[in-house]
């Protein structure tokens, strides 16, 4: 049996984000959440391995109580077991604190794993750091941005593109991979499956104390980085709106922006006089 762990994160779906102006971190409770897209690809990769190799999948997330939804979704898609790591003390964690906390949860609640799969990055903070850092914390090998994987006994053969090199690598298990979003197209959960998953009571929720951690180890206090501020990039676009018949719009576009476009394509786009 191939014992897998898929780490996933709930990310905000909306672009108007409620930030806490004091800590500079996201007020997660206020933003509607979804499963981070890359995590869906990681789950899909795990599901394919499960179908082929008699696998077992534990889905893990760390987040506010609302993040339970993505674990329910994971169950509907085929995960066997879920672990929810949630504690107000864990809020504001950077990648160092997050990978530390996840590692302790894995050591306690699923220590006999063969393979951990993570998405290659999240759509909110986009660091791509938690996967590699989790492997260091657990002292297991890891490979990032994997595009294909094939299991042979206790070895995983993977391919990936890294800085324009197509690499084929072999990794001994237990190990960790982060999954690139190109290849593993996520399946959809059936409505019936989703309904069942939301009735399923079996989500184990653990907090800092269950992991033997104190508040200085986790969350903002356990983080090495501090956010000074968050701002919208300067030089915001003017956002000129053009409406009407396509032909008229196109003429107006070139009347106003012939230089902006023409200078790039190196053509004179001025209308004939």
């Amino acid at each position, binding site marked *: 049996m191939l014992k897998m762990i898929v780490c996933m994160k709930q990310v905000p779906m909306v*672009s108007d*984000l409620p930030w806490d102006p004091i800590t*500079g971190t996201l007020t997660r409770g206020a933003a509607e959440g979804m499963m981070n*897209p*890359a995590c869906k690809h990681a789950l899909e990769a795990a599901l394919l391995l499960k179908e082929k190799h008699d696998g077992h999948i534990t889905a893990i997330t760390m987040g506010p109580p609302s993040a339970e939804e993505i674990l329910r979704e994971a169950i509907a898609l085929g995960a066997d077991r879920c672990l929810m790591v949630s504690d107000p003390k864990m809020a504001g964690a950077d990648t*160092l604190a997050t990978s530390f906390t996840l590692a302790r949860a894995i050591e306690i609640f699923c220590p006999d794993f063969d393979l951990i799969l993570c998405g290659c*990055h999240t*759509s909110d903070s*986009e*660091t*791509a*750091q938690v996967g590699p*850092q989790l492997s*260091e*914390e657990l002292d297991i*090998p890891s490979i*990032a941005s994997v595009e294909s994987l094939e299991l042979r006994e206790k070895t995983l053969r993977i391919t990936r593109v*890294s*800085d*324009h*090199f*197509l690499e*084929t*690598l*072999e*990794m*001994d298990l237990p190990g960790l991979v982060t999954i*690139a*979003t*190109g290849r593993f*197209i996520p399946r959809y959960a059936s409505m019936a499956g989703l309904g069942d998953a939301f009735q399923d009571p079996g989500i184990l929720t653990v907090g800092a104390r269950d992991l033997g951690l104190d508040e200085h180890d986790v969350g903002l206090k356990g*983080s*090495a*980085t*501090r*956010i*000074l*501020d*968050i*701002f*919208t*990039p300067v030089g915001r*676009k003017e*956002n*000129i*709106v*053009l409406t009407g*018949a*396509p032909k008229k*719009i*196109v*003429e107006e*576009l070139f009347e106003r*922006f012939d230089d902006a476009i023409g200078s*790039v*394509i*190196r053509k*004179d*786009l001025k*209308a004939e006089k």
Partner: protein
Amino acid sequence: MAEKKHSIWVFGDYRNYFQNRVTLQLLSRANDLAKMIDAEVCATVFGHEVDEWVGEYIAHGASKVYVCDHPALTFYSTDIYVVLMERLVRQYGPEIILVGATSFGREFAPRLAKRLKTGLTADCVGLDINDEGLLVQTAPAFGGSLLTRIVTPEKRPQMATVRPGVFQEIPHNYQAAGEIVNVPLPDDLPGDRIRLVSSERQAAREQKLGDASVVVCGGRGMGSRKKFRNLYELARVLGGEVGATRPVVYAKWADEDALVGQADKHISPKVLFSFGISGAIQHTAGIKNAGFIIAVNKNPNAAMMKMADVAIVADAGQVCTALIRELKKRIRS
């Protein structure tokens, strides 16, 4: 010359040297920062037969280079490089480490930061020193719609990966002199938990879209595969490339090569035409470096329309056809 108080290190990422200038760009910025905190700028080079890169880095602003040159380092290896770098850092105690945000850098730096139990900011687009002498790292979030400024107040070194193309390299200086510190390969390196089976340089094809100065991107709002094909004609007239969203690639209106979006492909055209794209974060993350954006969508409230310089509220297919016609009229050979 008096001994400097601190040192700023730049990780020498020389693979794809001619396309990937990020190490040189970081050496340049490190020199600016070094003046603000009284530091010397150092580079590290790990590999086999790497004299050429050592010389390059000195010529581009490194005053000291730590070199580990050994046949065992012929191929990039995250496992080995992390161990080597950790030891050097513990020995010499740099104040700041900068790493290019290449595929390798973004895998290597987090693991190094974890071993050193220090902070790391990903994919920075700005680096500065504040009044307290801390490295202020500006990083994008949410596909570049927001920027965050991050510091590592106590832990050392302060670490950042930096996006290629943000800083300007210093011109090559043949007269520059630098100290070379040869570092022996430790004899207790970790076992081969990961083995390289093969590594092939990919054809330049992938770069075409990434390097194009004009990109015409289409989404499902183009309506049909047939109408989507018109984008190729528009791209031809403009001398640009065609990009596509994920749903379009799934629907086989465009090849996988054309996919633009997070992790798959980032593009940075000077002019971007966006047709029938709502602007899901996976897509907008891939276009955050685009210059002038012209978006066409029936829905004026689509996220893509909000981030455009010019938002055209109309049918994407019709505007595409009208654009081709108007361009052909205006472009006089």
